[in-house]
């Protein structure tokens, strides 16, 4: 199996992730639920993971790293904490349903700062035009459909200028691009643990500037006599038993990313994407969503073909051992922006563990499938 669906979940993980999870399962209990060795081992590891992530995002305070189930969970905490019914919320034209649906549920007045793909200057201008008078901005760092890198530092600067609270969806950029949380001045950054950070499914992270409203209430292993949730982080936002096995894997994944460096990992994924794009562009009838400027795109490549549906292409590739994802990728907003809503796209996305040989095989197989049509 050649796995090219890392924008959904990175399947291949460093060996250290598996080892860390097995070790945690055998030896660790729950942090804050006792003073015995298994509880304290879990507490030490969870703290190490917070400290590692804090360092990764250039932060000093590990308690502002909140463990969540996934990026959607983290985004829900952020959105439900600071968006109220009727608030004017500005979003990019590339947002995932993990952003769009909670905003709809809250009853926000959502306005899309629309701009074409792979044109960061246009995105800056669209935000500059829409931010005055807004309450909140929510912006993905990288489009999950097209790998388009939005100009986040500039958008964050505009938000600061206009006094607009910024929530960042770093689902496709955490572990891929450098993110300097204090410099951005965002209120929250949400991310999964199971994509670029190379941790297991069931892990996510919310980075907080200050506090937030708990989405759930329950035991935290602190202030147990009080009926209210604690007022301090991370306890305030982490009710219930932690996914310690997952967090152990996440710690190993983050360490792997930091040891190798995001620049090196991204360069590899970009090289794979550029190579695949060049090969697929040679196929008659194939539309390839590729940026002329490589730095505007990560290792995510969407395509569609005149004669075969995206679902059909993905199914045939899958039947022949190449895993990709087709459809709307939970991002109808992005597809409306790119005018691909009616067809969806077939998305190839890469990890540090994919090779050029795999990409060549996937390109050749795609050409073969399309030529049979």
């Amino acid at each position, binding site marked *: 199996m050649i796995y090219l669906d890392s924008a959904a979940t990175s399947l291949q993980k460093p060996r250290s992730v598996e080892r860390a999870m097995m070790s945690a399962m055998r030896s660790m209990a729950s942090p804050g639920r*006792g*003073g015995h060795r298994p509880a304290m081992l879990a507490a030490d590891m969870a703290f190490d993971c917070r*400290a590692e992530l804090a360092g990764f995002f250039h932060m000093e305070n*590990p308690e502002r790293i909140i463990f969540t189930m996934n990026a959607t969970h983290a985004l829900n905490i952020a959105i439900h904490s600071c968006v109220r019914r009727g608030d004017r919320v500005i979003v990019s034209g590339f947002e995932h349903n993990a952003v769009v649906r909670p905003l709809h549920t809250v009853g926000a007045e959502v306005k899309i700062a629309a701009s074409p793909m792979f044109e960061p200057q246009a995105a800056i201008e669209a935000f500059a035009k829409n931010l005055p008078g807004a309450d909140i901005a929510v912006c993905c760092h990288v489009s999950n459909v097209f790998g388009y890198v939005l100009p986040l530092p500039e958008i964050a600067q505009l938000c600061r200028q206009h006094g607009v609270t910024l929530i960042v969806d770093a689902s496709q950029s955490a572990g891929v691009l450098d993110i300097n949380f204090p410099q951005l001045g965002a209120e929250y950054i949400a991310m999964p643990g199971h994509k670029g950070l190379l941790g297991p499914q069931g892990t996510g992270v919310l980075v907080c500037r200050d506090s937030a409203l708990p989405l759930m209430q329950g035991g935290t292993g*602190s*202030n147990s*006599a009080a009926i209210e949730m604690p007022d301090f982080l991370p306890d305030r936002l982490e009710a219930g038993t932690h996914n310690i096995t997952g967090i152990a894997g996440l710690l190993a994944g983050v360490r792997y990313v930091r040891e190798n460096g995001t620049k090196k990992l991204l360069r590899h994924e970009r090289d794979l994407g550029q190579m695949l794009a060049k090969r697929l562009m040679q196929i008659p009838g194939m539309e390839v969503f590729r940026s002329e400027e490589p730095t505007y795109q990560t290792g995510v490549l969407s395509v569609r073909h005149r004669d075969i549906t995206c679902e059909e292409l993905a199914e045939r590739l899958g039947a022949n051992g190449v895993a990709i994802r087709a459809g709307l990728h939970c991002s109808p907003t992005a597809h409306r922006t790119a005018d691909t809503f009616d067809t969806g796209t077939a998305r190839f996305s890469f990890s540090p563990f994919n090779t050029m040989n795999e990409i060549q095989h996937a390109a050749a197989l795609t050409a073969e499938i399309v030529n049979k049509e």
Partner: protein
Amino acid sequence: MGYEIAGRRCSMPHYLIMCRSLTYAQRAARVLERIGITAIVTKAPQGTGHEGCAYCVKVSEKRLAESLTALKNADLGPGKVFMLGPGGEILHEVRK
């Protein structure tokens, strides 16, 4: 003489510095360890006046003043401090 806390053998006398949460206790321990002070994170015993399930760091008597200064400098404003008896029991509060 001595006693065990969190599975580690301790010699006396020692002090418990109360922290607002487990994570703060862990941060405090890291701050102290960075300047060469042995600090053990442990669950707060009965009699420390907390609201249940609190954590603290344990330091030796000789390093208490230094520890409190370091924690204050690190913006980890230490909470109450208790002196531990030879059996690990709370003797008395020495700092509010």
